[in-house]
């Protein structure tokens, strides 16, 4: 997963706290509601230069950092592997 996603996420997760965001933690539990999800979407699209299609804008996509990353990877055509891993 690209560390840029975790940086973007941190700005939108009011309950994430200072420690690293677990890639499989529920984003809803970390404070993501439907209003913040739209702001997160705009940030993700501008950070990665992509446009996420409607069919990926589901609760499942926004479930965890990992599911969101898999959607980003799918849209940007990288399959996820080409992005630098978080150290």
């Amino acid at each position: 997963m690209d560390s840029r996603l975790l940086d973007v996420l941190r700005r939108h997760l009011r309950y994430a706290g200072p420690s690293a965001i677990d890639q499989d933690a529920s984003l809803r539990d970390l404070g993501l509601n439907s209003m913040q999800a739209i702001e997160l979407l705009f940030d993700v699209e501008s950070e990665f230069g992509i446009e996420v299609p409607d069919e990926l804008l589901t609760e499942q996509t926004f479930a965890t950092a990992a599911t969101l990353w898999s959607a980003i990877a799918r849209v940007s055509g990288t399959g996820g592997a080409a992005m630098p891993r978080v150290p």
Partner: protein
Amino acid sequence: MSAIPDDLIDVVCKAADEEAADADERASFPVGALAALRETRLLGALVPAEHGGPGATMSDVVDVTMRLARADMSVALIYAMHCQQTLTLVHHAGDELAREVLPALARGDLYLGSVTTEPGATASLFVAESRAHAEQGRTLIDRMAPIVTGGTHADGYLITMRTPDAGSPSQVDLLYAGRDELTVEVKGGWNPLGMRATESVPMAFRGAVPASHTVGEPGCFADIAKATFIPAAHTGWAAAWLGAAAGALSRVAKHLRGGKQAPSELVLARLGDIRTELDCVHAMLRHAVAEFSPGDTSATGSFQALVNSLKITAAVRCYAAVDAMVDLVGLRHGYLLGSPLRLDRTLRDLRSASLNYANDKLRLANGALALMDTGTRLA
């Protein structure tokens, strides 16, 4: 065919009608209507046959709620919210809890109160500040709620609390607590502009319930809210508001028919506009109910937007329709307190509609949903 016989609804309407003026004046709970709801077992309408109920649907509940609202909008709101709680238990309670509460609901022994409001500015269903604690297999409840409809008359409550050991306030549990499991305390009075008979007082609750009283999975109230709780609230409220406005229009139409000469074209055109508004809300309500699959946690964003739109539209248009009726019949018949057309009370009651889960909040939610659906797939 409806699972609820008309003559049972008539019994409750009669009781509601008889005490409506007094309950409004004193801002007191309609105890006669509640007794009738118990006796007729309309309180258990949504309980499936396997638990002793008639297995009515939300469509049936909408019929009953609209009828009740013609007599007293407060009674209709009380009934709709009780049914919202019942529907949530029917679809999300575990087997043990279902066996405990559903037969009692079917017998009319259990009137359910809703404890979801919290003091403070957050006022979101999806966030809970009050934290539940787990202790030896029991869940401890200690919380205050600023608005509990019929809270002093309820036999049991559905209460939202932050999940024990939750990492964040967005992990919320829905807990069932019988009145005998709690110490309840009324913390203040109730003297509002309208819907006065709902007696929605501030209350404090303290007690402990078994783990089986957590409705659905721990921390997952948001899923229940989207699947059942919110759509049931919005369709039930819309039915109450529409019934109140339809009742007012019926009284106005009878009043105009009783006149010495036919109304002017201006009056007819205005009357036609009011009728159109109510028909629009009714069409939207019936469509939303038809699209509603209670318990379905995979409900789409399009459906969420639809029920939000219904709530906003019903709140705005039903109030505006009764406001227009006041203009139509004038000061003497439309504005004097206690006039036979009762437009004063209906207008005061309906003024609450846009506040009862704020329209502004739902507009924001629908704006976000619209941007998540650039193809605009309408439900």
